[in-house]
């Protein structure tokens, strides 16, 4: 089996499993005042400090959530709501290539709360331009509730100029959030240096457990809570703290950061071989996203390719049958694949968007995985093309 879908979820790191299972065997609510509670509280706070250290934040800036989606919702909806206190600020500036965990809350605010969204355009590699952030805010600074620009795109892997965007927003005092779910543990991430007000992290994308994440939240940022009931996390997020998951998340973050430089260099080298190998077998396959493969421009584990004349879901099925696991990177409702909004935003046609696959590598990837894909991709593409041709002829 060649697992090439680490951007969906990556195997848990041994240190994370050890920390998680150790805590699963303990008792204690971190909010309790007795010894068992204090023990759990200590585990949570040490985890908070470890995550803060890993990502250039202060411990008090780490707000634990039940995953990246919740953290994105807290940032987008929470900041939007809190920004309406002094005066109406209807505008949200959001990149057009955001993950659905950001897109959907933005759309919900537009549909139900009178928000107005300004979609920040991207170029042909999927990159926003910080000048547009500046121009849009400068045109009417008081009307902007927040800016949200993901740190790196989950589909095509393009790294965004989030520092420049933060610098563009700062003079106006407009809070800026970034979804860094694909970045944390894989690229340098220094919250303090970034100038961002809020950054989303997820446990399971960096080798921790599923169901835990965090919002790094500058102390001046005060989103309205989504979840009320106890105020455990800075009164911004309520709910009993999940000590085992938090401990597992922190152990994974620490290991990922310690090993980051050498591990990500290995992953990037394998990724480059994957791209070269696939294009050698399928010469008209096209790499989407930034062709500059260094970590300033592209996620180390990401390879996103279009295969003209194929349906992505045919390719996925044929590869799956041959033990290669990858993703069409498309949103599903009842499993109905829609052409990726990311690819449409970078100028692909719906047919091109549907012909694409994302291969994503991670800490367990090996050359054998790449070889397995390269060995089968040629015949698989040929077959998918034949299937599409016969269907097209019929309809």
């Amino acid at each position, binding site marked *: 089996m060649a697992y090439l879908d680490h951007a969906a979820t990556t195997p848990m790191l041994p240190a994370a499993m050890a920390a998680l299972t150790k805590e699963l065997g303990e008792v204690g609510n971190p909010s309790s005042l007795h010894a068992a509670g204090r023990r759990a509280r200590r585990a949570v706070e040490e985890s908070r400090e470890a995550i803060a250290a890993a990502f250039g934040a202060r411990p008090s800036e780490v707000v634990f959530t039940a995953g990246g989606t919740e953290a994105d919702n807290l940032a987008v909806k929470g900041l939007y709501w809190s920004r309406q206190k002094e005066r109406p600020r209807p505008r949200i500036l959001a990149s057009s290539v955001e993950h659905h965990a950001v897109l959907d809350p933005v759309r919900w605010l537009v549909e139900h709360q009178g928000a107005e969204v300004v979609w920040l355009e991207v170029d042909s590699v999927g990159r926003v331009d910080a000048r547009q952030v500046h121009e849009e805010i400068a045109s009417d600074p008081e009307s902007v509730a927040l800016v949200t620009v993901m740190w790196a795109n989950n589909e095509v892997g393009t790294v965004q100029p989030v520092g420049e965007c933060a610098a563009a927003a700062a003079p106006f005092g407009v809070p800026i959030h970034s979804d860094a779910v694909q970045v944390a543990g894989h690229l340098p991430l220094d919250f303090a240096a970034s100038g961002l007000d809020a950054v989303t992290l997820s446990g399971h994308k960096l080798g921790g457990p599923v169901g835990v994440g965090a919002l790094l939240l500058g102390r001046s940022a005060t989103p309205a809570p989504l979840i009320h009931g106890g105020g455990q996390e800075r009164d911004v997020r309520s709910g009993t703290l999940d000590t085992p998951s938090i401990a597992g998340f922190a152990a994974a973050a620490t290991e990922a950061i310690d090993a980051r430089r050498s591990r990500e260099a290995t992953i990037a080298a394998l990724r480059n071989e994957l791209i070269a190998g696939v294009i050698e077998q399928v010469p008209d396959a096209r790499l989407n996203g930034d062709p500059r493969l260094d970590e300033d421009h592209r996620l180390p584990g990401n390879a996103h390719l279009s295969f003209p004349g194929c349906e992505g*879901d*045919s390719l*996925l*099925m*044929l590869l*799956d*049958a041959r033990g290669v696991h990858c993703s069409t990177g498309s949103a*599903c*409702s*009842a*499993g*109905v*694949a829609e052409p990726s909004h990311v690819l449409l935003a970078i100028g692909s046609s719906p047919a091109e968007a549907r012909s694409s696959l994302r291969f994503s590598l991670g800490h367990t990837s090996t050359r054998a995985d790449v070889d397995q894909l390269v060995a089968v991709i040629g015949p698989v593409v040929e*077959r*998918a093309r*034949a*299937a*599409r*041709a*016969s*269907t097209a*002829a*019929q*309809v």
Partner: protein
Amino acid sequence: MRVLAALSGGVDSAVAAARVRDAGHDVTAVHLALSSNPQTFRSGARGCCSLEDSRDARRVADVLGLPYYVWDLAEQFRAEVVDDFLSEYAAGRTPNPCLRCNERIKFAAVLDRAVGLGFDVVCTGHYAQILDGLDGPELHRAVDPDKDQSYVLAVLDRDQIGRSLFPLGDSPKAEVRREAAARGILVADKPDSHDICFIADGDTKGFLASHLGERPGHVVDSDGVVLGNHDGAYAFTVGQRKGLGLTVATPDRQPRYVLSIEPTTNIVTVGPREALGVNEIVAERPRWCGAQVVSGEVFAVQYRAHGETVTATVHVDSGLLRATLDEPASGVAPGQTLVLYDGTRVRGSATISAAL
């Protein structure tokens, strides 16, 4: 064989896939997403478009240990089936969308894609039998007469029949339900689907009205006397008795039936039951399940799903099929399909264009 099993999320397709898997074939499951706007968890189970059906199909595949994928055919389904359904009604005919779907989607777009991807056959939970004949595979009625679906499959040609598997054709429905329960298939007691899958609430008239708009017109008798008004001639079917909206009592106190629908003048003509009888059915676009029939052959013809058959002598001439009936039939609606049977064997079908 490499088999592509279509799973609707219902019990029949689940048992069909299970039987084929048990026979030792290499089975992959697909759920066909036919609606681009699936309704969330609508009540009951009505076919093939809901989120709940797709989840049920996934669970069936899990239980059977089959790889499972969703194929998005919403665009083709809308263009080939839903739009056709609307334009047929708008033209005063009464289409059967299940036949259309089998002809254009399940045994065309899906089958072709499956073959292209390396599958040998497509398997569904339809109740019909494929038997070896002298000249190749033949389509036959299912053994369970209540469930027989050979009528809606009569648009398949011999190649399509040869690339299809209907593992339920030899079983009564009750046995299929028992088998599903014994296999631990969670949808074993899910109700049968009867309605048109893309009309979620079963309100065909409302669906037509919302898409075609209200087009008020008169309901008249065969002398042209106005007996009532309607909101759209498209909402009527030849042979229909209820919901005619007659405001003038008929002299003989007998019920009236729709005799004809005239889309251009928007007039619905009604008359007594006797006036419904037809002796000849004309049908177009014949499709043969095997060899083309020879003019003068006698068949049992069926002119609507779940209907009776009538003995008829059939003539085929320049793309038109004429069936001369031994005894008058009533409720023959243009747009429905005329299917020719000899015994249990399906010989072909054509779309009814006129009843004389």
